[in-house]
């Protein structure tokens, strides 16, 4: 596995803490060939930029960070 591999914290370490979200990189699905992944559900920055009517990909990245912060309120 690449650096995308994620590891779960030790259970005994987390039982004392309130729930937290650890962001663990993108899911490595092995789709190296664009013909395979085209048309699948995507959160690529150009899509996020277009969907939220943003002007550049830096803003899209910022929007994803905002969404990461807000999703905590819904879990």
């Amino acid at each position, binding site marked *: 596995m690449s650096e995308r591999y994620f590891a779960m914290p030790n259970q005994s370490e987390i039982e004392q803490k309130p729930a937290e979200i650890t962001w663990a990189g993108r899911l490595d699905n092995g789709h190296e060939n664009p013909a395979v992944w085209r048309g699948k559900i*995507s959160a690529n920055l150009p899509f996020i930029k277009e969907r939220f009517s943003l002007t550049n990909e830096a803003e899209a990245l910022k929007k994803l960070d905002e969404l990461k912060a807000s999703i905590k309120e819904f*879990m």
Partner: protein
Amino acid sequence: MVRCIDGRGEDGPLANNQNLGTQVPGGTPVTSMGYRFAKGWTEDCNIVSDFAEYRALVESLGLPYISGAHQDEHNADHPENTGCGAIDKMLEIVAVMRESQTNDGGVKNYRVYEYAKAIASSHMDVQAFDQAFYAVQDNLDTLEKLSDRYFKRGQFRSDIVEEVKDGGERIGEKTVETSAGEHREVFLMVNQVEGETFDRDGFAASTHGLAQAFNYDAWAVPQRARDIFTDEPAKRHIMMVTNFMYAVATAMVLTDGSLELGIRQ
């Protein structure tokens, strides 16, 4: 009612978020595949009858969850499908699960193996995971041989939704959600916090429908397995690992590799 991991909500007013069902891929029908793998094969089983058997067992034990699934608003356009990617693409998902194994019993596709092992690490040790993983591979080999019958020669999809609806009508409960709109998931959440789930519709509404998230309540899988195979740890682990692998393979099949994983624990 058990919900799918799908990030799309239903049309209409927001659901009461104080009583949301847990989210697992495909809802209850996919859970019943893990039940079959753990219990062992019978001569005439198929994915629809396995769902009915599992649901009947849950009901007979008085377990506090209602078997559920979902369709989508496009069903009229494609009646052969359900609108649930985890069920409609079941053959492709099972194929990705099978890619994990080499002909000599080793591990070929480490992605499904490693991700499923990481999810399982909160619930079992590595040795138990490996034993269950190879047992699941044996079951996938059997499934490959029985594929035509088990998947009703490709006719299983709409039959499953009808079976789930029938169960709901029998107990006077809604058991099939109808997802609306396009897929706009941006995250894949794995929730390990027991007793808690995700307000899917609330999150989507907070973004005016521009963003959604898949959520997998992985904590619920060992609970279901304990309920069914209370004194049989090996079977319990097979049921769990089947579901963990299915969840990972579903995400791999449905998404393009750009969605970030959020692990909540």
